[in-house]
């Protein structure tokens, strides 16, 4: 049979590159049920969105001298935020020294962003974190290099939240890795200790650990030795996060095929060499996305320190609300800090999704 004559160029029909009208028809009104849902949603949106926009932007007051002025307006009182933003963001840190927590915020964010850069996923990451966290500690406490000493009871707001989250994850990570390795150990005593720890911590709420550390830790220590409040909260957060990191890393360790262990053994590597050079690098790469998830959760969980009276971002918000001159603007404050949390958490979550996609490409099943 001869070759058929080349077909004339045929143009793609409308549905491949839909005009807006066709798109609306197929995406929103394809079945009666869908049409109903679309109409309902659009109705709801029409009811809610203009009122929301009104409150947030159109009728809001952006600058005012007192709460009274703001109360006369229907919209949001962003003037309140403008008035109180330093308190909310920096807590009770001395006013003139507030550049120090500001720089710390940038340093910590930079630290997290650097860790996201794949070229840095090697041994250099550890010294970078150690240096970064030490500089932050130095800046916040002061007392050297001409910086005035600022007690950590005066710290507060966003830098405190960031410090708790980053120091928390930095310390919980090595502890969690050790626990994960211990849980997979063949030595029964070590395995039992690790299992008991992990299951105990995972079974109780973070609040109980915060209570435990703030109330019981002073009892655990000999007389005369005190630990300050911030450190107690940090200890509770580290112990809590370590259990979850341990479970996630354990998942990664399990995912590595037995052949890797056998290959390393056949080379004559000792247990620690095998773990350090072969197993952990692969396991950690597998669980990076879930680990970012743990960091996001930890970031949100730092808000719980409110309950033991530590001045994080959430408590700073409540403190701003106690000013008698500005009463009744809780919505504005909560929306403001919700936005801050959302920006941090959402960016991290988007990053983690992008990371997962990229890493999945590299792993062939």
């Amino acid at each position, binding site marked *: 049979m001869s070759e058929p004559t080349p077909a004339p160029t045929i143009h793609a029909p409308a549905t491949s590159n839909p005009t807006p009208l066709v798109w609306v028809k197929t*995406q*929103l009104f394809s079945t009666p049920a869908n049409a109903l*849902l679309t109409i309902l949603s659009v109705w709801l949106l029409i009811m809610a969105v203009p009122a929301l926009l009104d409150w947030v932007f159109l009728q809001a007051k952006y600058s005012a001298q007192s709460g009274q002025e703001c109360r006369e307006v229907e919209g949001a009182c962003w003037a309140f935020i403008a008035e109180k933003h330093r308190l909310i963001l920096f807590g009770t840190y001395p006013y003139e020294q507030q550049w120090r927590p500001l720089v710390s915020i940038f340093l910590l964010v930079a630290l997290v962003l650097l860790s996201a850069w794949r070229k840095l996923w090697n041994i250099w990451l550890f010294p970078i974190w150690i240096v970064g966290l030490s500089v932050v500690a130095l800046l916040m406490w002061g007392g050297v290099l001409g910086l005035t000493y600022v007690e950590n009871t005066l710290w507060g707001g966003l830098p405190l939240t960031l410090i708790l989250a980053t120091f928390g994850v930095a310390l919980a990570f090595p502890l969690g890795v050790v626990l994960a390795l211990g849980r997979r150990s063949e*030595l029964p005593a070590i395995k039992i200790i690790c299992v008991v720890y992990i299951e105990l911590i995972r*079974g109780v709420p973070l609040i109980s650990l915060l*209570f435990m550390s703030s109330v019981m830790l002073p009892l655990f220590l000999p007389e005369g030795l005190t630990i300050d409040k911030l450190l107690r909260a940090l200890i509770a957060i580290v112990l809590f996060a370590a259990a979850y990191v341990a479970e996630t890393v354990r998942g990664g360790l399990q995912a590595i095929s037995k052949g890797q262990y056998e290959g390393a053994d056949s080379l004559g590597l000792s247990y620690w060499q095998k773990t350090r050079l072969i197993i952990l690098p692969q396991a950690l790469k597998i669980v990076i996305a879930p680990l970012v998830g743990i960091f996001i959760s930890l970031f949100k*969980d730092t808000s719980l320190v*409110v309950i033991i009276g530590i001045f994080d971002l*959430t408590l700073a918000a409540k403190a701003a609300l106690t000013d008698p001159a500005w009463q009744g603007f809780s919505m504005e404050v*909560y929306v403001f800090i919700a936005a801050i949390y959302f920006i941090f958490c959402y960016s991290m979550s988007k990053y983690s999704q992008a990371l997962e996609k990229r890493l999945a490409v590299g792993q062939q099943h």
Partner: protein
Amino acid sequence: MSSRPVPLVLKVWNDPKFRAIFYQVVAVTLVGVGLWYLISNTLHNLSARNIATGFDFLGREAGFAIGESSLAYTPADTYARALSVGLLNTLRVAVIGIVFATLLGTLIGIARLSGNWLIAKLASIYVEVMRNIPLLLQLFFWYALIAETLPGPRQALSPIAGVFLSNRGFKIPTVEGDGLTWLAAGFFISVVIVLVLANWSRRRQAQTGQIFPVFKTAALLLIACPLVAWWLSGSALALEIPALKGFNFQGGLTLSPEFAALLIGLVIYTAAFVAEVVRSGIESVGKGQWEAAGAIGLRRGLILRLIVLPQALRVIIPPMTSQYLNITKNSSLAVAIGYPDLVSVVNTTLNQTGQAIEGIMIIMGAYLTVSLAISVIMNWYNARMALVER
């Protein structure tokens, strides 16, 4: 190659069994010494501060009031009773929260997979916003909304007839007296009928191949029967509708602002996570399964029921259980908005008695028990449901 005599010490050290025992002894000793150090310090400190130890305080009079409770409680009751009230409050909000979070989360999860772009987008926005804001903040928000922004009882909002929302809480109508028993009886009967019907239809299908619409009939029965029973009873047709008397409402069921805020916050927050679990469960069933079932000629509804959902459930159940555990643990945030759950009551107790250790042990013991129980059940269910492979 000549072999030099190996010193005994090295021979012993290089024996893997010896090393194993050695490391374990070291670990246990370290942990043991550490614990002993902490405990001895604690005992010393406790006696120095004249704080009692032991659980005798449970029998003493509590002396503080509890905002809301399912049991009868007065400040003259014992600490033990106070703790039971707290525990029941925790369970009450946890169970109701689990039910509603599952329903809402499943709906939103399915909505995210919808072919309707608007619905899918709205569901995505919901999930992303709710997941990325701390729960505590959301609780503060809802509590502020209810306690500060809602009007007083006299100007209460009434979105549905009989339901009143004010800053003193939510009031909803309940069924008066006996009516509830009749409703329950009707429901029970309808369940029995549905089970018998399902059995009969299954056998008929096996024999003749005819399919009976069990699902639709069951839905109809479960709603109709209780209502019919209630009407037949004639005993208490009236709903107890809250009526404004003086400064507040009388009658009907009251949800305190604290309970309402906690429940709404927990449900809305957890539903976002449940939605993700449901969505990834359904997506985990490969496209090939849909195609093969479609190629045989099954319709979408049957494909979901017979092929996709059974496989999706296997993937959904473990993370769903962990979300249920999370609701239970997260209910402990009640202490921040004043709802008297277990943590809150224990907190008051340990402030009064000074016996912090016993108090915290009670909290951790209670949550651990619930967590371990759910874990055990989940592991058993998982093992039973695992796909059989070679």
